């Protein structure tokens, strides 16, 4: 019986068993979108939120006004970072499947976002990442062993066993701590950027969240504050089409692109091919330059695809076609940069395979080292009494009493007995 309600229930174009269908995506040919000056008036930039900035075309050639003309050496470095991100993720995923870490999240298919933006920002710019931005930590120089030890909650864990795997923090690299609560980092980035401007510094801030999280109030708070004070901040929406099992339409992406979310507030939006490292790099440089010149915030929507599961706790075959990612019209970010470099004569399949082996060996060596600091099943163990540290700068006496009590109980029972 037909439902008499006129309520629109958003549904993805394909569910398990269906043929993948990305006909809903608006694509622009590579090189077809103008590159306005960074000082352009916001009202003249609306086209950027409707089109799709692409540099690499289907034949892997770099085209158009957004081509950043990066040196081949720099592109090889970018390729290496994206590959390291993927190799690292693949290894950690396997490690989780072996039961040696509790949880993991991979950036499979979205590596260009973190790496290109890491390259486009300055080291003094502050990053407020989401949980799929491990590439930022890697690019900013976080040690692989440190990242693995965090995931292991072992004696070298930067989080001292307090945080789920992947929730890194990296003060010296100017990358903030990851929260499990979605979108909360967005207003932090705006406040950080406001402080930078208040102090007369030219550092900017950047933050990332997914298409799903744009529905959170913090997204809207952040956009409002960024627009009101023209804060020097880049706000990124990584539209990977899926928020666990709900597609981007459930977050409100069916009628207008997420890049257009800021237009009502006067925030320019750029919709970019998120699997095109050159395009992501170029739009980020543009937005950073605009912010540094006092032009205020830019919202960047990265059109990409979450090729993997949401997390190790997720099984996407339950809600979307198997191998849907193979039909994704914007391809794979690593393959595309690799093919571009090969086409330009600066790379080869052989070099690529060799690099991949080197990276796997590097990750494997790091894993061997990381395990020496303890695993979930084998010591050495973190001192559980450290759970009472860092709750406050100036801790209340009750925490010390509780620490003593916990130690009394657990020393009686011996280590590892959690009864």
């Amino acid at each position, binding site marked *: 019986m037909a439902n008499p309600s006129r309520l629109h229930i958003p549904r993805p174009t394909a569910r398990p068993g269906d043929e993948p269908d990305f006909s809903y995506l608006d694509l622009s040919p590579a090189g077809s979108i103008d590159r306005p000056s960074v000082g352009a008036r916001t009202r003249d930039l609306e086209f950027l939120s409707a089109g799709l900035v692409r540099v690499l075309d289907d034949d892997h050639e770099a085209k158009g006004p957004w081509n950043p003309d990066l040196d081949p050496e720099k592109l090889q470095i970018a390729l290496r970072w994206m590959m390291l991100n993927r190799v690292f993720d693949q290894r950690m995923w396997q490690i989780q499947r072996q039961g040696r870490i509790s949880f993991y999240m991979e950036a499979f298919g979205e590596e260009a976002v973190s790496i290109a933006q890491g390259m486009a920002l300055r080291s003094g710019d502050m990053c407020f990442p989401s949980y799929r931005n491990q590439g930022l930590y890697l690019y900013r120089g976080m040690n692989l062993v440190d990242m693995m030890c965090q995931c292991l909650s072992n004696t070298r864990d930067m989080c001292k066993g307090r945080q789920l795997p992947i929730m890194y923090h990296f003060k010296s690299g100017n990358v903030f701590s990851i929260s499990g609560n979605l979108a909360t980092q967005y207003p932090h980035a705006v406040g950080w950027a406001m402080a930078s401007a208040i102090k007369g510094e030219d550092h900017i801030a950047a933050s990332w969240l997914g298409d799903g999280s744009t529905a959170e109030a913090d997204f809207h708070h952040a956009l409002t504050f960024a627009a009101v004070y023209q804060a020097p901040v880049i706000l990124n929406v990584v539209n990977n089409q899926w928020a666990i099992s709900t597609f981007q339409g459930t977050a409100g992406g069916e009628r207008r692109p997420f890049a257009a979310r800021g237009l009502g507030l006067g925030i320019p939006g750029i919709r970019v091919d998120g699997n095109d490292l050159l395009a992501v790099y170029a739009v980020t440089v543009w937005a950073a330059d605009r912010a540094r010149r006092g032009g205020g915030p830019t919202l960047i929507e990265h059109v990409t695809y979450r090729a993997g599961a949401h997390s190790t706790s997720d099984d996407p075959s339950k809600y979307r076609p198997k191998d849907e990612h193979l039909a994704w019209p914007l391809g794979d970010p690593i393959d595309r940069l690799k093919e571009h470099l090969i086409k330009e004569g600066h790379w080869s399949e052989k070099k690529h395979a060799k690099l991949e082996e080197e990276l796997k060996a590097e990750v494997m060596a790091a894993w061997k080292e990381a395990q020496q600091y303890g695993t979930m099943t084998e010591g050495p163990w973190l001192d559980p009494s450290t759970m009472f540290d860092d709750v406050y*700068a100036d801790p209340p006496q009750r925490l010390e009493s509780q620490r003593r009590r916990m130690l009394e109980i657990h020393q009686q029972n011996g280590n590892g007995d959690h009864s």
Partner: protein
Amino acid sequence: MAQMNMIEAIRSAMDVVMDKDPNVVVLGEDVGYFGGVFRCTDGLQRKYGEHRVIDAPIAEGGIIGAAIGMGLNGLRPVAEIQFADYIYPGFDQIVSELAKIRYRSCGEFFSPVTIRTPCGGGIRGGQTHSQSPEGIFTHVSGIKTVMPSNPYDAKGLLIAAIESDDPVVFFEPKRIYNGPFDGDPEKPAVPWTSHPKGEVPEGYYTVPIGEAEVVQQGSEISIVTYGTLVHVATAAAEKMGIDAEVIDVRSLSPLDVTTLADSVKKTGRCLIAHEATRFGGYGAELAATLQKSCFYHLEAPIARVAGWDTPYPHAFEWQYFPGLKRMVAGIERVLETTA
């Protein structure tokens, strides 16, 4: 010494700290040009400029979220939430972020935000301008919760809060902004000039967070309270002609257990009083803590006087507010019981 009401004392605290530390900034709804709906920031924008005293959009989650980001970048933000009843849109930012950033990053990151917010009833504010949600915040590890009961403490505690590297939620009982209030709305208003704690140094001083104050010494009963009810408690004891010890908790978290327990051990009787709703409230924590440390000294069960477990009704404000009659009845109950 100057005479100040609580509004002037709070303003003076911000003025003194802003003058001392260029990283202190104030943000909130109407705090800038206008100086705040309760006038607590009056004149600060003229003195320190629009970059340090910032009129914010009406988005409490945004105010607190942006303040956290400012704090992460070296500023020392003082965020005003216009009424404590409006704090809930910022609750996630307070509980999940502000309170936990230091812990989750093992001390690498922290944000020393102070959140000032007027609380409590007695001003005909109805249920959306009268709440006392302090117990919701004392329950959260990683933040400190403070509520002064007079101008001297308000200034000293606020300076200590702003200078603290820990986040502080600073509740201002708005019924006593302009004068102490004994719980009887029929009586003419009394100004702070009539009260010794209306004398406030003009310069810098702090009242340490984590210390309760014995407001008056006594031997028959310990009345453990804070905020507006400190004045109701002293008035009730005076009216009854009893020798009550009245303790102003003022720092709800961290809690000065020693001062409270010493008093209860001495008197053997304890009444806990707060304006907030009773069930699951902060008074329950006080009762449990004091029962544990003073059990063998108690001559009667610890009792509570609190707001009814309803929203704050506009037309029945004085039936809701735990005023003199309820305080007297509570004291009688504790005094009449024998172990």
